[in-house]
């Protein structure tokens, strides 16, 4: 898909549901400065979602979709879990893989897209839960990092298997008691960010989704570094409010609590020198482009 193909056939456009007409007219495909601030003023790339009321995962989806540098040239690879319920409502190409296979699928997909579209930068983004990333799919996840596959892996970390009723996962914190883990977890939360760094990821970030500007920056960094350098990994805390005994309105507070000093999700990043250099140059280019646009606007006025 490219931006030019997101067009309705003229002769049948007038029978299309309003959400598609809006998508074609006001979505931010092709806008290189797209970001979370577009939410509310342009058509989002998520139409609806089937997650629980107040689920932080739904807001994470919205921020990520608003932050992708080129959604028209992006393919998501999802896996089993709550995320897989949302992908049918997303206006970005996506593939549902078997539980845990997502990084293997993404490896093949990225290589194939590079052969099929040598002149177009096609981004591949894996988006899976902690069960798929750390438990069932850890082999595929790590092997893709070892191989230096150029795509981004995003893990929605809700610290348990939420979709199936609250079983213990590798990313669950030590001692936590869940509905299906009544004895409490007996070992520490897996330090996946450090594993990712050691396994060869050029950019690694851990944070919650309480602050959209931070999520936007991290997603952009991860995708842009993956394009040029190698694998990147983003771990986002998206607590399952149902499984940790919270109310719909308490997801944001839970995330804010967990990112205070000493918390499990204080924002951290691991960036290789090469990736940092790239990000610095992109920042300079963006700054120069925006300045030029501003100057042009001033002259015109």
């Amino acid at each position, binding site marked *: 898909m490219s931006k030019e193909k997101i067009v309705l056939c003229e002769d049948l456009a007038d029978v299309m549901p*309003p959400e598609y*007409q809006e998508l074609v007219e006001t979505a931010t495909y092709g806008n290189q400065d797209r970001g979370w601030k577009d939410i509310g003023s342009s058509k989002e790339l998520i139409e609806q979602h089937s997650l629980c009321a107040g689920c932080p995962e739904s807001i994470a989806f919205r921020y990520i979709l608003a932050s992708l540098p080129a959604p028209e040239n992006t393919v998501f690879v999802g896996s089993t879990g709550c995320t897989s319920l949302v992908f049918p409502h997303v206006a970005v190409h996506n593939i549902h893989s078997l539980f845990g296979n997502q990084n293997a699928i993404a490896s093949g997909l990225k290589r194939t897209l590079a052969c099929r579209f040598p002149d177009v930068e096609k981004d591949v983004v894996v988006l899976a839960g902690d069960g798929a990333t750390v438990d069932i799919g850890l082999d595929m996840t790590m092997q893709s990092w070892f191989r230096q596959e150029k795509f981004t892996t995003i893990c929605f970390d809700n610290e348990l298997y939420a979709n199936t009723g609250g079983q213990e996962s590798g990313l669950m914190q030590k001692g936590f008691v869940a509905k299906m883990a009544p004895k409490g977890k007996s070992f520490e939360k897996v330090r996946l960010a450090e594993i990712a760094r050691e396994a060869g990821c050029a950019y690694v970030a851990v944070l919650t989704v309480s602050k959209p500007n931070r999520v936007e920056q991290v997603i952009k960094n991860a995708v842009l570094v993956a394009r040029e350098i190698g694998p990147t990994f983003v771990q986002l805390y998206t607590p399952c409010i149902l499984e940790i005994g919270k109310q719909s309105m308490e997801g944001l507070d839970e995330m804010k609590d967990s990112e205070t000093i000493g918390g499990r999700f204080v924002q951290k990043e691991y960036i290789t020198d090469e990736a940092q250099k790239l990000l610095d140059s992109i920042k300079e280019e963006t700054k120069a482009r925006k300045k030029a646009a501003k100057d042009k606007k001033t002259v015109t006025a």
Partner: protein
Amino acid sequence: MSHYEVKPGPEAFLPPAAASMGNVLPDPGEAHIGGKIVPEEEAYDKAARMILGAKVPTIFPGPLVLWKWTDHVAEKAKAIRELAIEAPMRIIPMADYRPKYPKIEAAVEINPNHPNLTIWHNKIDVCIFIGVHCHMANLSLKIIRGGTSCYTIAMCAMSGHEDACLSFRDADLAMIEKLKATIKKLKSEGVESQAIPFTQFKMSRSGPIVPA
């Protein structure tokens, strides 16, 4: 295996897949009517007569003809609109395949996961699927046969559908135009459309322009 006739339903909550009953897809140049392989010409005549004899004939265009992903598709869309005007037939889009929440607007859209709602709501008695991906068309056709009395016609661009009451295969622009020409010919011979008069709804970004 005995011949299994694919008739309009309601057949059962879970009608059998026609393929599992021994029905096969037509070869190029052929079509099937009720599961029986016939020459394509015979299918045009039958489809045109069913459309003209229906009270609420409807076209369900799918994503493959709604989105202009090639210029050829735009030509197909134009032909579909002309077919709808010639018959006349309603057009209700199958814009996507997602299970829509909290509910679909049955008057103006159809969804493969619960196509029966649109058929029931609009009292559709004959429908044509065009431009719907085969796996979704198969799902939808079975549900329609299971729970409604609608006669289903598939204009499939691939190999056809066993689960439709009538199915063409390799349906391209010329075949859509030929169906239109057949309808026109029958009308000129005195076969009148039995369609209940209607106004085709139109949508804008903010909702219906002509109330459905």
